[in-house]
């Protein structure tokens, strides 16, 4: 196991090799003797949960009728019973406010139950002597990578935990190296934490926990703020650790992560609502939806197919679903008939007409003409480069893409935002999405090239001023910009800055709040900080809408919302768009873009990779994979099935249309084969 190296290394140090990694013995050769102080001699290699865990019958974590309340009035959970065995990979699901994070902090003795008991490695978390023993053996990783790194250098941060445990210096260096290796960041010791990507920061945070030699790793929505690439990396690390014997408790909103766990527990209002293998739990679609949770794509599609009468078992994993479907694949002759049938059906259904009617024909509202942008001083760097010998401008241009000294955040971007359309923008973190949208209202000016609003250059002062109001910009986590004493004042900030009269301001505030589904007379006098996260985001949206923009530009508007809030928000955006507002939507979620956008633009390293209708863009799966992006789940499955000979005719599939076409094909194939 992963800890084996460390355990063995440590044991070797005191001359008594002990590599029984599977047992609780070797699982965590923590420096803290049971019940000992954190200063216990690390050289002795006192192993962590041995003995203690044995007493708990192999269950590392036990909640015995545990109840917890923050304020003495509202119970976060009550009489909760839960056992997590050694070596499990448990996924904890639940909507916002279901008590997941509180539960995680109870395991780690950061919080203690107000009634009942929580036993971690058989030790009561209220036992003060066990606190550091528990914390070092049940490592906790938090959601926001920026909130949990204490040091400016990676190695100092990773060493922080074991330093607190009093591990001596030579051992510390080895632990840091081992822990970084386990999360795939070998050699990152001297890197600055501030310069890492979000995904790398979270892996450093995990390394910081691993360096304490834990037996349990708890991740409290650790992937929530990462892009798909960062999330995949995090999940890979967790699976490797688990395969090496680590017990993992993962709190998440992402069903594709839950589908990979061994056991899924769904919390609802502080009680265990569902508990079982992913295959059991995640296929109970109706119950999950009632608890504000997503249903994994494979489960939801297989259930939809069953509704269509296809003989298929409910699955949670895409691979399982493909296997199931393979058994039902339309055979040669029958397939031909099905293809004709499906083709005709698809052509007749015309499911891919442009949305919004006007989308294709709209006049360009915003246009970018060969926009380059750099945060630094590109001219100077370029001169230096030229002096350095590379002369040909074309060669230079080609070199920028891979040049580590590349300074361009945007490279030759040309695009149009057409009146009435919803333009989706995709790209991984650092691809220039946020930089791009800040050019749209003239907040920052292109280093080269032009940005035009209805044909007029934003560089012109008057046009620039007009763009500020015509283009409403909703930043990522816009609720972090709320500031006024009341919701009303916050929303009124923009209109007041425009110098509007009190009546006009009042009208705009009411309309804007109504547009986000809030009532000015009900919430207007409240402090924005009293509201829930989702409500705060609505207020922040209203603050931009009150500027009466012609284009609404949104940077990851549903990031970090739970599934229900997410759906409500997307519906809100769809409604605004249907009412005629031109929208630009930056998103990591290809499913959302496929569902909502008229056109999708993909950025890679500051340049436009591709731009077109979702059907066009998502047809080229490989090009997207090459830049670390995926395609919508239904589209990806359709492409794979097509390669296996399924005659799927539509250019763009969503879940419903894929279920319908597959059911038709299976029906046809089934009849051909079984003569049904």
């Amino acid at each position, binding site marked *: 196991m992963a800890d084996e190296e460390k355990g063995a290394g440590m044991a070797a140090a005191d001359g008594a090799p002990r590599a029984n990694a599977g047992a609780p013995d070797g699982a965590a050769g923590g420096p803290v003797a049971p019940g000992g102080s954190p200063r216990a001699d690390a050289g002795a290699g006192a192993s962590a949960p041995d003995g203690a865990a044995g007493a708990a019958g192999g269950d590392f974590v036990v909640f015995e009728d545990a109840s917890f309340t923050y304020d003495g009035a509202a119970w976060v959970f009550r009489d909760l019973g839960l056992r997590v065995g050694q070596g499990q990979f448990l996924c904890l699901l639940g909507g916002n406010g279901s008590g997941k994070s509180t539960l995680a902090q109870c395991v780690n003795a950061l919080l203690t139950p107000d009634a009942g008991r929580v036993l971690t490695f058989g030790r009561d978390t209220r036992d003060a002597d066990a606190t550091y023993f528990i914390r070092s053996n049940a490592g906790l990783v938090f959601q926001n990578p920026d909130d949990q790194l204490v040091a400016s*250098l990676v190695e100092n941060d990773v060493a922080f935990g074991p330093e607190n445990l009093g591990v001596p210096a030579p051992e*510390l260096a080895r632990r840091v190296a081992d822990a970084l290796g386990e999360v795939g960041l070998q050699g990152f010791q*001297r890197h600055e934490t501030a310069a890492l990507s979000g995904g790398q920061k979270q892996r450093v945070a995990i390394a910081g926990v691993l360096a304490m030699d834990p037996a349990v790793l708890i991740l409290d929505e650790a992937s929530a703020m990462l892009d798909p690439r960062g999330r995949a990396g995090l999940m890979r690390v967790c699976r490797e650790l688990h395969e090496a014997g680590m017990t993992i408790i993962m709190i998440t909103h992402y069903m594709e992560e839950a589908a990979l766990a061994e056991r899924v527990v769904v919390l609802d209002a502080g009680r265990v609502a569902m508990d079982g293998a992913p295959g059991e739990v995640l296929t109970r679609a109706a119950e999950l939806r009632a608890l504000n949770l997503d249903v994994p794509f494979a489960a939801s599609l297989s259930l939809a197919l069953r509704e269509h009468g296809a003989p298929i078992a409910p699955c949670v994993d895409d691979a399982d679903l493909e296997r199931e479907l393979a058994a039902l694949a339309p055979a040669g002759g029958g397939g031909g008939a099905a293809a004709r049938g499906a083709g005709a059906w698809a052509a007749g259904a015309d499911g891919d007409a442009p949305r919004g009617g006007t989308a294709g024909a709209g006049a360009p509202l915003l246009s970018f003409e060969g926009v380059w942008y750099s945060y630094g001083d590109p001219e100077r760097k370029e001169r230096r480069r030229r002096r350095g010998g590379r002369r040909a401008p074309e060669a230079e241009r080609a070199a920028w893409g891979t040049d580590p000294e590349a300074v361009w955040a945007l490279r030759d971007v040309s695009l149009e935002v057409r009146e009435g359309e919803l333009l989706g923008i995709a790209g991984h973190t650092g691809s220039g999405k946020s930089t791009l949208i800040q050019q749209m209202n003239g907040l920052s000016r292109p280093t080269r090239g032009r940005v035009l609003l209805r044909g007029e250059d934003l560089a012109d002062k008057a046009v620039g001023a007009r763009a500020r109001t015509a283009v409403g*910009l909703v930043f990522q986590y816009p609720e972090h910009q709320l500031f006024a004493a009341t919701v009303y004042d916050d929303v009124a900030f923009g209109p007041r800055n425009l110098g509007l009269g009190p009546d006009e301001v009042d009208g705009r505030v009411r309309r804007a709040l109504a547009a986000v589904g809030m009532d000015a007379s009900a919430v207007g006098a409240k402090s924005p900080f009293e509201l829930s996260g989702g409500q705060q985001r609505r207020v922040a949206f209203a603050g931009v809408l009150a500027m009466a923009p012609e284009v609404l530009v949104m940077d990851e508007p549903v990031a970090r919302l739970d599934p229900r809030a997410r759906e409500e928000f997307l519906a809100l955006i769809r409604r605004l768009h249907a009412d005629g507002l031109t929208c630009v939507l930056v998103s990591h979620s290809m499913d959302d873009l496929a569902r909502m956008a008229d056109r999708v633009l993909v950025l890679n390293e500051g340049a436009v990779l591709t731009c077109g209708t979702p059907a066009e863009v998502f047809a080229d799966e490989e090009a997207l994979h090459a830049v670390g992006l995926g395609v919508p789940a239904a589209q990806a499955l359709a492409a794979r099935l097509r390669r296996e000979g399924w005659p799927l005719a539509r250019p763009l599939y969503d879940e419903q249309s894929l279920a319908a076409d597959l059911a038709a094909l299976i029906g046809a194939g089934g009849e051909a084969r079984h003569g049904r």
Partner: protein
Amino acid sequence: MGDSAVFGRYWPGESVMHRLDPRVKLVGSLALMAVIFLARGWAGLGVCAAFIVGLYLAAGIPLPQAARSIAPLLFIVVVTALLNVLFVQGGQVYFQWGPLCVSEAGLRQAAFIAVRLVLLLLGVSLLTLTTTTLDITEAFERLLAPLARVGLPAHELGMMMGIALRFLPQFADELRIIRRAQLSRGARLAANPLRGGAASLSALMVPLFASAFRHAETLSAAMEARCYHGGVGRTRLHPLALAPRDAGAAIALAALAACVLAANALLPA
């Protein structure tokens, strides 16, 4: 943005300057400041300037980056110089308008003070560019350790300082985003934050404080989760130990002080 030197941000490296004991660097930069103040004339300042340039070269930090790292603080230099121009009088008068008078002595004094301030800023900047926040913290803490016996919370002060330094660049980034968001809502912040009134200022500061509290809450939980319990029993990844190069640094500083004193004596301003 990661490729430019910023005041207060660490510039990764393995140079001799980076490897000096942080205690020596902390005390050394105080000593350097004292020496800069000792210099009475241009010759002395010239010696100091040459010494500081040498330090930056030894640290492997390009001089333009050194200049850039102090650029945000140059307004202090400009304001101080202006005050000197206006308040120090003597010698030939170049310009007179009412009570405002620009004279030769004023210009000389202003130039001297400006150069001295730039050198001071470069000296402080070098400390933070070549020393990680945790090392500065550690040095601070260890230097104050004798005072812990009389009840001074040396470790806690050091930790607080380290965390403040670690979050400084982050808050700068967040402030930039908040500013842009409020500008998009028509806030008039660009011209003059004071004239825009309390509303515009609070539009920046309230979200920033809210964010600071949010960070603080999680950070303290995250530190506790990693068994932080104060300085008792803590070990260090890189325990501080004085090396021959630290003695070298002390000797170099002493030599600098001697040169400056000699310059004062031999070439009076």
